[in-house]
């Protein structure tokens, strides 16, 4: 297997800077999730790694070798395209078998391994279909099977599961993880599904406007986002703007919020609080001493299956609070409630 090193890579399309000075180290055998808003350069980065196009500046190394010196087909990379790029003239079987066929795998082994791969993506029995006879999700699974069947050294997955229903997606996630563990494939995948990114990956990187904003383990990123953008992009966050004063954050209305560690800087500051960290408390007795407390008015309750979202307002800040759909309080819009959360959950971020 092979580690992938991206160093100081920039890439423009005409005037448009799609990647600027991105450096990431993808560890050998690691599972790396690339996150970022639409248009942030994720696909562009994958394409540079695969070697379909070349960075304007910077360098990419796979297993220590500079990619430019190795033609695409010698790199042993499995890439799954965002738009699948299935071969329209070939059956599902032939599409999946392609990577094996070009490696001169014996016929019988191809058969066995393609069968396995199709079973893995739950498409046994679809061997003879042509891509245009498949549904969107089925195509996506063929593309996935095609990319993994030949056990590449590096696997690049561009939103591999976006067209699948939850059940299938969970199944595929487990399989992907299993393969990656068993074979130790260095896997880089792009996803918009937060949960997927957080549960699957060893490491997560957040791209924005072609720049790498932050990287770290899922937990690090989630619990300690460095910027307001990272906080809101990965998971949800309530942002409180105020002025650091005496180690605490003073809001406009005078409420003071304590943070895990007293704020070092002074001046304008932003703190983020995850909506699921906030509780709606009825009696103050429950509050521990290091809680932040805030009064707010309920505007709307949104039902979201396993959880409820409360939209609230405190002054001119909109707030969002999650409550697990178990014994959630039955609140009416307009009602004033009291919110409380641990000071440790109040994270200072860059605006």
């Amino acid at each position: 297997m092979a580690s992938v090193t991206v160093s100081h890579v920039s890439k423009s399309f005409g005037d448009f800077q799609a990647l600027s000075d991105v450096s990431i180290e993808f560890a050998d055998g690691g599972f790396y999730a690339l996150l970022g808003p639409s248009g942030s350069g994720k696909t562009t980065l994958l394409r540079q790694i695969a070697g379909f196009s070349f960075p304007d500046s910077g360098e990419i190394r796979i297993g220590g070798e500079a990619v430019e010196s190795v033609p695409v087909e010698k790199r042993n990379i499995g890439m799954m395209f965002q738009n699948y790029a299935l071969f329209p003239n070939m059956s599902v079987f032939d599409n999946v078998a392609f990577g094996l066929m070009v490696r001169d795998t014996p016929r019988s082994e191809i058969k066995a391994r393609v069968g396995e791969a199709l079973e893995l993506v739950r498409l046994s029995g679809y061997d003879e279909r042509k891509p245009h006879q498949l549904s969107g999700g089925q195509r996506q699974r063929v593309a996935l099977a095609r990319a993994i069947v030949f056990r590449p050294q590096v696997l690049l997955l561009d939103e591999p599961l976006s067209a699948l229903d939850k059940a299938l997606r969970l199944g595929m996630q487990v399989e992907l993880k299993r393969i990656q563990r068993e074979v130790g494939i260095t896997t880089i995948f792009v996803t918009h599904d937060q949960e997927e990114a957080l549960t699957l990956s060893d490491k997560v990187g957040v791209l924005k406007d072609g720049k790498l904003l932050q990287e770290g383990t899922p937990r690090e990123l989630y619990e300690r986002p460095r910027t307001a953008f990272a906080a809101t992009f990965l998971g949800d966050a309530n942002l409180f703007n105020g002025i650091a004063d005496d180690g605490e954050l003073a809001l406009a209305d005078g409420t003071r919020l304590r943070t895990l560690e007293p704020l070092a800087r002074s001046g304008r500051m932003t703190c983020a609080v995850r909506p699921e960290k906030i509780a709606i408390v009825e009696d103050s007795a429950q509050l521990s001493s290091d809680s932040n407390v805030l009064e707010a008015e309920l505007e709307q309750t949104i039902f979201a299956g396993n959880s409820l979202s409360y939209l609230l307002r405190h002054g001119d800040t909109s707030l969002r609070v999650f409550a697990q759909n178990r014994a959630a309080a039955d609140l009416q819009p307009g009602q004033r409630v009291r919110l409380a959360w641990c000071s440790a959950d109040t994270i200072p971020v860059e605006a």
Partner: protein
Amino acid sequence: MAVSDTTTAPIRRHRPSNARSILGLTGPAYLWLVITILLPLAAMFYFSFLSDVPLPGRDWQVTLSNYTAFFQQDFYRTLMLRSLRLGFEVALWCFVIGFPCAYVLAKTIKGRWREALFLMVIIPFWSNALIRVFSWTMVLRGNGILERFLDWLIPGFGSLNLMFTYEAVVIGLVHSYLPYMILTCYISLSTIDDDLIDAARSMGASRLTVLRRIILPLSMPGIVAGAVLIFVPVIGSFMEPRILGGREGTFLGTVIEDQFTSVFNWPLGAALSFILLACVMVIFAVFQPILRRAS
């Protein structure tokens, strides 16, 4: 790319009917073809079963002799095979030369240059065929332009003796028909999504495999179109063979021409043409399943 099943569904009840659209779209073209070509040719077809042209003052009766003549005279068959071989070779050369050219045009040249080159390829076509052939005689003949050029390049090169040979016919015809292949391949190649090529390469396919498994099958419609537009007219061609082939330039096309121009034997000429046509159709009928599978 999905489901174009509109038409394959069994028609069970009143549907916005396709028949009108089909008629509207194909009608004008086929009406035109029928009136100006197919009906006249049908008359010719009828003539091919007559012993003489049905004109006042001539005796004629219905006969198969024009067709049997083809099977009685050995030389017709020899010429037919020769013509087919010529058609095949010219189409093959056009493919071998034209396909890479189309590929370069479609896949590596970008922007305005591509349009300009696309047009440059076809313009030679607009010069008169006869003049083009005469120009080739200039180039190919002994001590002609080609020999002089080679002699300048490699002093003491000597003589090629290309003129009035089968090869000269092939060169002239390849030149005349090459643009067909380049353009039809180009228009097919330009529909291939570059991601498919990238995908194949990322899976480890060498350039050759990509070519064989992805590019060729997907550009098959263009290759076939080009082959049809070359093979078919070439086997009936007479001008290039006559002028460039000299003594070697006798093919079925020239023989058919003779029937019309030097003797007034339309029935035999027509019969030979229709045998040629039948041959073409049989060849394509035989090839069709193979081509279908390839693409």
